């Protein structure tokens, strides 16, 4: 088991190096460099050169990459060229806000997805199966930013019972006033994981149900729900793996939902950085989100191996 974990973690090193290279190359493909955005066009050439030298922009690309990588790896994520604040501060505050909606959303999506998928497979072919499968396929086909708009139209505009914009007061959500801001974004975000997971669980349960050990359990005299429990145990690792992946997608993909709800998370930060052409914020945010995604993938693999020894190889 330890060998498996160590090997898995070591494999992440070249991946992360590759990720940093992709981000750096994208950064260098931006028309004009960071200095062009900071330096007014009428500034004399000496001043421009001085600023370039100060940020190391006069160095060859590979030196720039190594310096940038060194800074990133040591936790110095750079300074925003727009607000002059350290990127790390802004980014981790925003990430915490994103977590507030992404974590509940992934749990809601996972629970609903497993429930719908298992029931659909259990009553395979019935109207219940058709209904739940329909809900699941709608979940993966819905543009969630549009669902967010529709929910705002219904619950904030027409019924006026839930807030449609913003996050409410700062801090950890405990009061109702705080929690009600969470409801619409969380429901919106949970649709995709719900659809994806319930489709996977349904297919898995159907496949496992036709295996021999299930007939053996039934021959032993176990009744429906108990058999389903055994089946679910076998379907759990892949569903958990998918949940981890979906969580990663939510962190990256919440940008759309955050835009709809004016939620001050990492997605809004990314959006703002793109329109301000704030390259340090943009590249650091992308790098950190991708790193989190890689870490989540490792955790998922380890979790899977813990549940199912066959995966450890």
């Amino acid at each position: 088991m330890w060998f498996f974990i160590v090997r898995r973690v070591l494999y992440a090193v070249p991946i992360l190096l590759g990720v940093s290279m992709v981000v750096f190359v994208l950064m260098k493909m931006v028309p004009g460099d960071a200095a062009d955005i900071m330096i007014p066009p009428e500034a004399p050439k000496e001043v421009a050169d001085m600023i370039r030298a100060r940020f190391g922009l006069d160095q060859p690309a590979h030196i720039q990459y190594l310096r940038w990588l060194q800074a990133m790896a040591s936790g110095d994520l750079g300074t925003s060229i727009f607000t002059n604040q350290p990127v790390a501060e802004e980014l981790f505050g925003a990430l915490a806000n994103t977590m507030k909606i992404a974590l509940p959303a992934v749990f809601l999506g996972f629970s609903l997805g497993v429930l719908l998928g298992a029931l659909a497979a259990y009553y395979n072919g019935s109207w219940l199966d058709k209904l739940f499968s329909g809900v699941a396929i709608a979940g993966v086909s819905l543009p969630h930013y549009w669902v967010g708009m529709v929910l705002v139209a219904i619950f904030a505009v027409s019924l006026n019972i839930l807030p449609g914009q913003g996050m409410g007061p700062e801090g950890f959500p405990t009061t109702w006033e705080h929690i009600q801001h969470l409801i619409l974004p969380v429901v919106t975000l949970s649709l995709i994981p719900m659809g994806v997971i319930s489709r996977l669980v349904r297919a898995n349960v159907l496949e496992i149900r036709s295996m021999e050990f299930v007939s053996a359990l039934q021959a032993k005299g176990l009744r429906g729900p108990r058999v389903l429990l055994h089946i679910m145990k076998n379907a759990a690792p892949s569903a958990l793996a998918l949940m981890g992946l979906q969580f990663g997608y939510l962190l990256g993909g919440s940008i759309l939902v955050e835009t709809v709800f004016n939620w001050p998370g990492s997605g809004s930060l990314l959006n703002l950085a793109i329109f301000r052409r704030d390259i340090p914020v943009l590249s650091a945010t992308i790098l950190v989100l991708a790193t989190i995604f890689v870490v989540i993938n490792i955790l998922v693999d380890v979790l899977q191996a813990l549940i199912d020894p066959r995966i450890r190889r």
Partner: protein
Amino acid sequence: MATQDTIVVPTPDAVRRAEAGKGYWTRVRERLLADRVTLAVMILLACIVLMAVAAPLFATHDPLASSVLARLKSPGYNGHWLGTDEVGRDLYSRILYGGRLSLLCGVAPVAFALLIGGSLGLLAGYSGGMINSLIMRSMDILYAFPSILLAIAICGMLGSGLGNTILALTITFIPPIVRISETVTTQVRSAEFVEAARASGARPASIIRFHILNNVLGPILVYATSLISISIILAAGLSFLGLGVTPPDAEWGLMLNNLRQAIWVNPLVAALPGAMIFITSMCFNLTSDGLRTAMDVRI
């Protein structure tokens, strides 16, 4: 798989096929025609595509003609079947024209990714060894980005526009397609009928052409159809963020973005472009499901 006359060892599937007296694709077509839901969905999809492609024929108004007096009117107002948008343009005509760009952004990236990713996967699966590791490990790096983040990163750095949107989505879709075609190719490569073909002196090119491609094509097409649905949602999402198609061109995501504030005034009109994204994407997903069932030889 109509041209598999080099098969030496009859697989159980081949036996069943011979008994039925029909080719694989003939049976797939028959099963598709018998599946009423999928058939209905495919017809609906064909209608959406036709109306978008032939938008000038079906449109009732100029999609760019605005009117200060007729802003955000409900469906049915003064000959505007679906109402008007925030600057008084006819929504029905804009949805038709918008379908052109939305469908293009849905299909083009998948088609490009299919060509590039499919070939890379075939190459990786067929050659194995170093080439396989090189290709698959580079894909792992692209896999380390959550898909929409990669698309946003590329569009955000390179700037908005139709070309960059298609480029960003193409790069996003290459890794999963490579993975599928590599997996299937590796499986098929060691199958008995490929061994037999190799033993009887077939060259790699013809083995790939007749055996591997025929087996890889099915799963990849099913997957690509479901990718189109994701591509439409993502492309519209990029435009929704202001990173995709640029105004005043009509595109569903961009229209949704422009109508965002109108949700407080006329929610029904503001929701319409999003409904089109949903319906089209659902059609592609259902078609993909239907194709998968029809192509599943086990049933």
